[in-house]
């Protein structure tokens, strides 16, 4: 029952709320007249405030409260949204995010927000003078002075409650008494809180939540609670928690609320504990049968306690452990299959085959567990693009499609930074400024498309702008000037090849180094990052029409389907995803073209590469054979045939790295352990295609 349990819930939910605040603010900015969005924002802010106050993060709560004041004026048509108001609200969101991050990192969530608070207050005061008095009053009251008395509501909580009453919610004062023979009263109290949190919001409790958790209370506590449910309904819900002696819920209206909050703090603080033991003595028999009767029918009560959550949050490390264990299992499975095929016992073979199917299903599930929607990365981009466009004085729409596409968590974790970089590029260099766009006959507002979609064993993420496009000639010149290419080489590059030079190390075409991008350390880092994830990035561009950066990513990083091949005494694995086809060619079909060996493949000529030569395999040379097995692999549009000795078969393999000590080996992307315990190297087909 320690605080951490609430804390992780609080952090998760705060992040959700902050995200929805951000999204809705963006929506509102596009549609400033839509009061429906303001309502949504207000509700989010309100919940956030309530949660923060309950958890004791005063700074967070007071800042949200100020935001609420502004929003309140807006939704009541007393204030029109304007640019600077948006900016201030966004700034507040940033500050809130920083606080939540601080809390996540184990901090107190404290931050100096006086500046933002002051500007929020200025908005409330400056724009609508009539509201100034009210705002001042509220802020003065929000000061911590009032909260020092433990029993009383501080003005801040009071205003929350009053607002709720005005909005038509039920505000209840609930007294709960726990049976005296209860061993774990903090647990029971927690269960009550948990129950209540499901159907409403606890604004304040006496004693405080912390004290209750540490069992620093007698056999009773009381609280202020906002809900949509009726008082009697709640009473019976609470009574369903075992070992609860008595629960009374009193609905409050504005008048009684005022009286209660204005009653002397000391009296309010002492009254409940005194009262409760008294009640227990007075009616010792009655509540017990009642509790039993209630316990007899727990099912309907539980159903009314709100739909149980359909998801659980699992520690990422546990998933990793699961994954590792599963990898081991897979290796054993392959080994078993080998043994079974040697033994030739039909019962054994059948069992192993069945196990193979089950483990296949299991693998699918395990992989799915690790899949995360790209939305978790994408969701921060609209805000980023907005800020960026604003600072560059451009008008840009970011259109996101396919945010529900799923990727392995490890990829998701790493892909954020490269995408940020590409997006910044699109906004800064891609989309022209408004004047240039008008001159080119385009709409003033630029569009940046962020797309994610599945294709085969890969996920593609594309960032496409409708800007000026890339001038290949400029790239060539720049590359020559920077010594990346010689003049002759540059002339030989096709336009398409030339613009890929953007990814060459030390290349930056920006004529003016802006604050946003173009510091010269750029796309080469993006490219190597994506390559390290087993992906690839290419750029397509049409002058005057726009630029498209296409990022190709593997669905998963740890288990892949691969073709095992033999070269002499050595075994290698080739990822199935890059194999186009396998076949056998005769020696006579090999042609010498320009000093290199080519074969005809589906109407075109593709190079034939000797793997045994490339890897210097001692005990195999395919040139002595009349017929050679080939594997045709692909990288993008280009194909190459690899000559091998034998196909062993297709297998699921677990990718392992070669260890830190080994330098990068050309043509090898990793290793895997085969069923017989031997290590086989995984071929990186991309290395053969330049």
């Amino acid at each position: 029952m320690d605080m951490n349990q609430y804390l992780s819930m609080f952090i998760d939910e705060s992040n959700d709320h902050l995200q929805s605040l951000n999204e809705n603010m963006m929506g509102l900015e596009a549609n400033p007249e839509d009061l429906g969005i303001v309502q949504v924002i207000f509700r989010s802010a309100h919940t956030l405030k309530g949660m923060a106050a309950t958890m004791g993060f005063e700074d967070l709560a007071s800042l949200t409260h100020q935001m609420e004041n502004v929003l309140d004026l807006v939704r009541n048509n007393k204030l029109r949204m304007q640019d600077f108001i948006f900016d201030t609200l966004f700034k507040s969101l940033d500050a809130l995010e920083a606080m939540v991050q601080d809390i996540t990192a184990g901090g107190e969530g404290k931050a100096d927000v006086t500046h933002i608070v002051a500007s929020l207050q200025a908005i409330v005061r400056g724009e609508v003078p009539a509201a100034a008095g009210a705002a001042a009053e509220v802020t003065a009251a929000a000061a911590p002075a009032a909260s020092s008395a433990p029993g009383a509501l501080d003005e801040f909580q009071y205003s929350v409650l009053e607002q709720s009453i005005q909005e038509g919610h039920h505000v209840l004062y609930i007294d709960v008494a726990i049976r005296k023979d209860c061993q774990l009263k903090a647990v029971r109290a927690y269960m009550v809180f948990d129950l209540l949190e499901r159907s409403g919001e606890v604004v304040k409790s006496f004693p405080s939540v912390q004290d209750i958790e540490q069992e620093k209370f007698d056999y009773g506590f009381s609280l202020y609670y906002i809900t949509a449910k009726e008082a009697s309904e709640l009473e019976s819900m609470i009574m369903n928690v075992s070992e609860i002696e008595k629960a009374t819920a009193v609905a409050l209206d504005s008048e009684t609320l005022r009286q209660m909050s204005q009653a002397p703090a000391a009296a309010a603080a002492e009254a409940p504990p005194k009262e409760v033991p008294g009640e227990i003595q007075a009616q010792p028999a009655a509540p017990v049968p009642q509790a039993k009767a209630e316990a007899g029918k727990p099912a309907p009560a539980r159903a009314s306690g709100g739909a149980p959550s359909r998801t659980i949050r699992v520690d990422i490390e546990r998933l990793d452990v699961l994954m590792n264990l599963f990898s081991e299992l897979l290796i054993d499975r392959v080994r078993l299959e080998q043994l079974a095929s040697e033994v030739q016992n039909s019962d054994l073979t059948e069992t192993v085959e069945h196990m193979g199917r089950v483990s296949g299903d299991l693998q699918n599930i395990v992989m799915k567990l690790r899949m995360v929607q790209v939305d978790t990365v994408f969701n921060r981009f609209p805000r980023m693009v907005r800020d960026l466009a604003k600072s560059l004085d451009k008008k840009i729409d970011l259109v996101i499609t396919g945010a529900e596409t799923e990727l392995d968590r490890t990829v998701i974790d790493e892909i954020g930074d490269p995408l940020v970089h590409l997006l910044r590029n699109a906004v800064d260099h891609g989309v022209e400024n408004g004047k240039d766009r008008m001159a080119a006959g385009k709409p003033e507002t630029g569009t940046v498309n962020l797309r994610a979609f599945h294709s085969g064993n890969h996920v593609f993420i594309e960032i496409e702008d409708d800007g000026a496009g890339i001038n290949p000639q400029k790239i060539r010149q720049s590359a020559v000037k920077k010594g990346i290419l010689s003049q002759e080489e540059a002339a030989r590059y096709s336009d398409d090849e030339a613009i890929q030079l953007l990814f060459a190390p030390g290349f930056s075409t920006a004529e003016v180094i802006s604050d946003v991008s173009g510091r010269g350390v750029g796309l080469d880092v993006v490219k190597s990052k994506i390559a390290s994830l087993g992906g690839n990035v290419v750029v397509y561009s049409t002058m005057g029409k726009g630029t498209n950066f296409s990022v190709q990513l593997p669905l998963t990083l740890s288990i892949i389907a691969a073709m095992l091949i033999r070269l002499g005494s050595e075994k290698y694995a080739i990822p199935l995803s890059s194999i186009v086809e396998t076949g056998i060619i005769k020696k006579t079909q090999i042609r010498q073209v320009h000093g290199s060996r080519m074969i005809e493949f589906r109407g075109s000529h593709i190079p034939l590469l000797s793997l045994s030569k490339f890897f210097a395999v001692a005990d195999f040379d395919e040139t002595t054979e009349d017929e050679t097995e080939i594997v045709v692999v692909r990288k993008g549009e280009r194909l190459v045939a690899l000559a091998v000795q034998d196909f062993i078969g297709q297998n699921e393999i677990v990718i392992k790295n070669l260890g830190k000590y080994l330098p990068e080996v050309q043509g090898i992307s990793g290793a895997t352990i085969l069923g017989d315990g031997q290590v086989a190297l995984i071929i990186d087909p991309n290395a053969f295609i330049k």
Partner: protein
Amino acid sequence: MAEDIKVIVFKLGTEEYGIEVDKVQTIERMMPITRVPKTYSFIKGVINLRGVVIPVIDLRGRFGIAEAEYTDQTRIIIVNVNEMEVGFIVDSANDVIDLNRASIDTPPEIVGGIKAKYLDGVAKIGEDRLLIMLNLSEVLNKSEIVQLESLEG
């Protein structure tokens, strides 16, 4: 008084070498090694050590001593230095001794053909046994390997 350390003793040719015991993970018998192409000749390849892929180095090759046939006595010493796991192929490994740090002297320029920078020192044990203490982080220093290769190439 300097502290006592435990040292694994292994042999390359006739020389005896020592590695501090806490840097050694396990000592394995010779096992199948998967060759890794396109790398330094002294990197013999990778092994599967209980599910982990670990590169192995022939220590003779690393020190530029003529490589020998592997025998029953040949061992792979798996060390863990700077979070790198690497296996060393050595002629034999059959002793653990206690050594006082004070008994380790700074090495002379060349010992058994190995450059002094790979060495932590030389310890005299018994009457006429000399133990050469290896400086593992230098042995595994990659930037130095690159220079070495470019000199050879």
